[in-house]
C-alpha cells in the first residue's frame, strides 16, 4: 500500500511503499520525517550524506538465501571503533527485516519480543551469557552507538544523532546473531535476532549496486599534516592511515578524526598495500597492514594484512617468522578456562581444539585502509587454540571480544598466491598450527617396512620351528687325546648342503680352551676346518664375587655333500695369565637339522627402524611445535 506525502521541511513529495514504515528520510533534503500515533508528520534532524555502498542501495532488489527482497532504507551508526550500516529490506511476502553490515560481516535480523527480561547494560561484559527466550546468546561487543543518518524508509523511529548503549553477540554455537539496544532514557532493551550470513549468501543484483567500483572517489585530506590520502579505500573502510605522517584517520563521521599515529621505524612487511594475493581461487588485494608486538622472552612481532575482494569480502592474512595463516571472524562458543595450560582441550562450537598459548599483543604500526578503527598502542589479549592446520583465536580488545578461525597456508600455496618475483621470507621453526607433512621419500615407506617386518618375524618363527638339532655324535675327549689330535667316531650326514653344529662343554676353572676342528671324509681327507674356544674365570673383588665366560662352546659348520664324516679335534689350553693347562676333558656333540635363526633379527631390526621413521619424525615435529608453548609454561613455573 503506497502512500505519498510531502516533506514538512522542504515540501518535496516522498513515497512510502510499506505499511510498517515509521520513518522516512526525505529523498531531497535528507530530513528525517516521523509518524506519530496520530499519523501526523514530524520533521527531525537532517541526515549526513552517507557514502554509497557497493553492496546495496535504496530501491535495489536482490536475494538472500534464495528469497527476493527490495531495499527500503538504511541507517548508519558509529561506535567507538568503527561504524556499521543497517539495511532495511522488504521480503517478497511484505515482511521487513534488516541486514546489518559490520566489518564486512552480514547479519539478517528481525525484532525479538523478549518473554523474560535480559540483564541491564551495566551488568553485561564480553562473554556474558544472555537468555533470549529459548536461546542462549554470548555477548561479543559492548559499546555506545550514535545514529549518523539514514536514507529511504525505516520501520521504526530513530532520532538522528541519538546515542544508545548496545550489546552484540551470537549464539553459543554461532548459529544466530543478536543485538540488544538500550533506550537512553528508560534503559529498556530492544532485542534483535537473526542469521549470520556469508558474503555470498546475500547481495543486490550487480546492476543495482550503488557504486560500480569498490573504491570510493571521495578525497581525504589528513587533518594532522594536511596531505591528501591516496591509498585504497572502500565504502566499508572505517580507518585509513596517512602515508605521509602515519596518523590514523577515522572516517566514520562527517569529519575525519585522527586516532593514533605510527612512530619509530616502519616494520618490515613482506607485502605492500595493493599487492594482489590469490587465495582459495579468489583474488584479494592488500588493503591494510598491522604490526603487533608481544613481549615474551623478548619482543617479537607478527604482521597482519587485511585483504579484500569485492566477491569474498575481507580476509585476514597473518605472517609470523616466515609462516602464513588466513582467518575470518567466526561466531561459535569458546570454552577456554580463565587460566588454560598448553595442550588442554578447548571446545570451539562442536569441535575440539587444543590450547596453545595466550598473551597480550600491542599494536605498533598500522597503515592502509581498515574496516575497523585500530589505534597504535592498543592492547589485545588473546587465546590461541589449534587443531592443525586450523586454529581459533579469541581476541579481547577493550570491550569487544572477537573470535577468528583460520588455517595455516603452506609455503607452496603462498608462492602460488603472490605475484611472481616476490620473495617470501624463509620460515623459522615450526608454527603452532603448521600441519605435519611427511617427507616425500618417507611417504608409504612405513607400510612397506611393516610388511618386511611381518615377513621376517614369520621367517624367524619358521626358522625356530625348523631348528630340530638331531644329535649325530656324542663323545668325551680327554686332554691327552685332544692335545695330540683326536679323530671322533664316524657320523652320517643324510642330505647335501646340511648345516651342522658342534657344541661342547668343559669343566673349566679359571682356565681356557682353544679348539681346532677338521671335518674328515670317508677318504681320510679334510674337507673343512674351523675353530672355537671357551674360557671361564671367576673370583672375588671389592665389589663381591664375579664370573666371566663359560665352559660351553658351539659353532655351526656346513657340509656340502651327504656322507659319513669324522671330526678331527685338537685343542690347547691354559690357566690364569699364561699359566699351565689344567687338562680338563671336553664333551662334544655334533648335531644336524639346524637353522641359524639370529640372521632374521637384522632385517627385523632394520624394517622396524624404517617402519618407525614416520612416527618418530612426526613425534619430533610435534615436540618442536609445542616447545615454545610448553617451554613458556615451564618458565612460568
Amino acid at each position: 500500500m503506497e502512500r505519498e506525502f510531502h516533506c514538512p521541511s522542504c515540501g518535496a513529495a516522498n513515497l512510502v511503499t510499506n505499511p510498517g514504515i515509521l520513518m522516512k528520510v526525505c529523498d531531497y533534503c535528507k530530513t528525517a520525517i516521523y509518524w506519530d500515533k496520530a499519523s501526523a508528520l514530524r520533521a527531525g534532524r537532517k541526515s549526513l550524506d552517507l557514502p554509497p555502498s557497493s553492496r546495496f542501495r535504496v530501491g535495489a532488489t536482490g536475494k538472500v538465501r534464495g528469497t527476493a527482497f527490495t531495499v527500503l532504507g538504511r541507517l548508519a551508526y558509529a561506535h567507538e571503533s568503527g561504524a556499521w550500516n543497517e539495511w532495511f529490506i522488504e521480503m517478497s511476502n511484505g515482511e521487513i527485516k534488516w541486514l546489518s553490515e559490520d566489518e564486512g560481516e552480514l547479519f539478517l535480523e528481525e525484532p525479538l519480543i523478549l518473554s523474560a527480561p535480559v540483564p541491564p547494560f551495566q551488568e553485561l561484559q564480553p562473554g556474558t551469557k544472555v537468555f533470549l527466550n529459548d536461546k542462549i546468546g554470548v555477548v561479543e561487543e559492548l559499546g555506545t552507538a550514535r545514529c549518523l543518518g539514514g536514507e529511504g524508509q525505516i520501520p521504526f523511529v530513530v532520532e538522528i544523532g541519538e546515542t544508545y548503549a548496545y550489546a552484540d553477540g551470537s549464539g553459543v554455537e554461532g548459529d544466530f546473531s543478536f543485538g540488544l539496544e538500550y533506550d537512553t532514557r528508560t534503559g529498556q532493551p530492544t532485542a534483535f535476532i537473526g542469521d549470520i550470513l556469508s558474503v555470498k549468501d546475500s547481495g543486490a543484483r550487480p546492476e543495482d549496486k550503488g557504486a560500480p567500483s569498490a573504491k570510493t572517489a571521495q578525497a581525504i585530506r589528513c587533518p594532522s599534516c594536511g596531505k591528501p590520502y591516496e591509498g585504497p579505500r572502500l565504502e566499508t573502510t572505517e580507518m585509513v592511515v596517512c602515508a605521509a605522517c602515519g596518523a590514523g584517520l577515522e572516517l566514520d563521521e562527517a569529519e575525519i578524526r585522527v586516532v593514533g599515529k605510527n612512530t619509530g621505524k616502519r616494520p618490515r612487511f613482506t607485502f605492500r598495500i595493493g599487492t594482489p594475493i590469490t587465495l582459495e581461487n579468489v583474488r584479494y588485494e592488500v588493503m591494510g597492514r598491522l604490526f603487533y608486538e608481544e613481549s615474551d622472552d623478548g619482543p617479537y612481532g607478527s604482521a597482519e594484512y587485511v585483504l579484500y575482494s569485492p566477491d569474498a569480502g575481507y580476509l585476514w592474512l597473518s605472517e609470523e617468522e616466515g609462516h602464513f595463516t588466513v582467518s575470518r571472524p567466526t561466531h561459535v562458543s569458546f570454552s577456554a578456562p580463565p587460566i588454560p595450560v598448553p595442550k588442554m582441550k578447548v571446545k570451539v562450537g562442536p569441535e575440539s581444539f587444543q590450547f596453545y598459548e595466550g598473551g597480550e599483543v600491542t599494536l605498533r604500526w598500522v597503515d592502509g585502509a581498515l574496516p575497523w578503527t585500530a589505534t597504535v598502542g592498543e592492547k589485545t589479549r588473546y587465546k590461541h587454540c589449534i587443531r592443525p592446520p586450523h586454529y581459533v583465536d579469541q581476541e579481547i580488545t577493550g570491550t569487544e571480544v572477537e573470535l577468528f578461525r583460520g588455517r595455516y597456508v603452506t609455503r607452496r600455496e603462498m608462492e602460488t598466491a603472490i605475484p611472481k618475483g616476490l620473495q617470501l621470507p624463509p620460515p623459522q621453526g615450526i608454527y603452532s598450527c603448521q600441519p605435519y607433512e611427511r617427507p616425500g621419500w618417507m611417504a608409504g615407506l612405513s607400510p612397506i617396512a611393516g610388511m618386511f617386518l611381518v615377513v621376517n618375524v614369520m621367517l624367524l618363527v619358521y626358522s625356530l620351528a625348523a631348528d630340530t638339532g638331531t644329535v649325530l655324535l656324542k663323545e668325551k675327549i680327554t686332554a691327552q687325546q685332544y692335545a695330540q689330535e683326536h679323530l671322533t667316531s664316524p657320523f652320517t650326514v643324510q642330505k647335501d648342503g646340511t648345516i651342522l653344529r658342534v657344541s661342547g662343554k668343559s669343566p673349566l676353572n679359571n682356565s681356557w680352551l682353544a679348539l681346532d676342528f677338521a671335518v674328515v671324509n670317508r677318504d681320510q681327507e679334510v674337507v673343512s676346518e674351523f675353530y672355537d674356544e671357551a674360557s671361564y674365570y671367576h673370583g672375588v673383588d671389592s665389589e663381591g664375587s664375579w664370573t666371566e665366560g663359560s665352559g660351553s662352546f658351539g659353532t655351526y659348520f656346513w657340509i656340502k655333500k651327504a656322507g659319513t664324516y669324522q671330526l678331527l679335534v685338537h685343542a690347547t689350553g691354559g690357566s690364569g695369565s699364561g699359566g699351565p693347562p689344567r687338562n680338563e676333558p671336553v664333551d662334544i656333540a655334533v648335531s644336524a637339522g639346524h637353522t641359524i635363526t639370529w640372521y632374521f633379527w637384522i632385517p627385523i631390526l632394520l624394517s622396524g627402524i624404517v617402519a618407525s621413521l614416520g612416527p618418530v619424525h612426526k613425534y619430533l615435529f610435534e615436540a618442536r611445535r609445542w616447545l615454545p608453548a610448553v617451554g613458556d609454561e615451564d618458565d612460568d613455573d
Partner: protein
Amino acid sequence: MSGILTKALIVGVLGLFTVAAIGGSFRGWFLPAELKQPVSLKEGSQRPGSHGRALYFLGAGRSHYGGGYRGGK
C-alpha cells in the same frame, strides 16, 4: 625423483637383508666354506703322531687357530 630413489634404495636394502637372512639361516651361506681342495690327513701330517695317527694341525706347525689354511678357500 630423489624421494623415489631413496625409497627404492631403502626397500632394496630391506629386501637384500631378508634374502641374506633366508640364505644364512636355511642354507648356511655365511658359514665357513669347505676347502677348495680336500687335504689328505696323511698329507697334512708332517711328523709322526702318537698311536700311529697323523697330526694334521700340529704337523703344519700350528698350535691352534691361526696360521692359515693349507687347502685354501
